[in-house]
């Protein structure tokens, strides 16, 4: 919402000051924390049909690398975090009003399919393609 005409100047300087403070807090935060929270990225996760004891009916594969997304979508988002424009704004607002606007989510931005070859009850053989089974890339939404 646009600030009232007469108080515009003082408002603007107030906002800039808040952003400066936010930037300082961000730098300080990551230093004092010591462990800078990891940014949003893909992590290993392997679904093993073998460990589920399904090798008598699943011919191939033995399992598949599903991966998962985890990590912070914290201000300032750097370029390799696949952040949407909306997520960048939301991150900023979260900093200014952390209790009103949550941080964006770290979630898959690209998913791949897999194929599974298996026997049915009558020993017919089925090859089935499944979509959206494997995380290819993560990002901030």
């Amino acid at each position, binding site marked *: 919402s646009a600030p009232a005409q007469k108080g515009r100047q003082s408002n603007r300087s107030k906002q800039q000051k808040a952003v400066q403070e936010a930037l300082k807090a961000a730098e300080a935060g990551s230093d004092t924390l010591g462990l800078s929270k990891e940014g949003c990225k893909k992590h290993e996760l392997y679904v093993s049909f073998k460990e589920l004891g399904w090798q008598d009916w699943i011919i191939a594969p033995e399992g598949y*690398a599903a991966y998962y997304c985890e990590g912070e979508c914290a201000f300032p988002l750097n370029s390799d975090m696949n952040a949407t424009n909306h997520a960048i704004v939301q991150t900023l607002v979260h900093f200014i009003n952390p209790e009103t606007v949550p941080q964006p989510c770290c979630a898959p931005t690209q998913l791949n399919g897999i194929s599974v070859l298996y*026997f049915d009850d009558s020993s017919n053989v089925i090859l089935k393609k499944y979509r959206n089974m494997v995380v290819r890339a993560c990002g901030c939404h």
Partner: protein
Amino acid sequence: NFSVDNEVGSSFIHRRLRSQERREIQREILSILGLPHRPRPHAHAKHTAAPTFMLDLYNTVSTEAEPRAYSRYRAVLEGQASAAVSPQDSRFLDDADTVMSFVNLASGASGEDVRMILSDIHKPSAGSPDDVIVDGDRDLLVQPHTQAFWFDVSRIPEGEAITAAEFRIYKDFIQERDGNETFRVSVYQVLQEPPDSEAALLLLDQRDVWASDDGWLVFDLTATSTLWQLSPEQNLGLHLVLEDRNGHKRNPRRAGLLTGSGPKDKQPFLVVFFKVKAVRFRGAR
């Protein structure tokens, strides 16, 4: 690119699961795979439906297929025919969401086998030896030198439409006195099987083969399989007839056709390609 050690290190089960947890995980993953329960194939099914051909399709479609799966499975089916995936099959595969290969459920007795089996049961009815009609259950109602096949296409993925179907039968090389003997292989759809007369047949497809040919003979069964999917009661199976160049019916095995005997991976089979008609929503659990 995904190395094996990662696979072990990052498995999703980091500790011994309690049986209840394991069952829950299995149920959840089965529901993602669209299966109501985990299949229980017959331990040593006599006829499994062309796994090598299907494994070739699998390796065609899944680029990150684990090479081990292929070699592991290939080892199991050592010495089998390499069921060639034709360019046409690859096109069907690109467009399909599911591919199923079906086991031939007819006992596979040919007319000749039937006659030998029945000759000590009762004398065939009067009439020329060639049109011996025998009673008995359906898959024995065949003419001599006629091979019956029956595939149960009633249990197919819900909400999926057939985009293509092929009947495949393997032909071995046979050494002929005169190497250039030719045969004609005809596949018929059985339309009716009246109890007291010959079956009514519809010619679906024909192939002329040389005695010296070997490999898979492929017959287009798209229209027939679609009919059987829509009206299962019309699924009375197929008849395969082999004729020599003089038009005389011969036992298919005479031309090297493997109609039911032979190695596991040279069994005749039906392969059907399906495409999803409607998006399947998984019920909330």
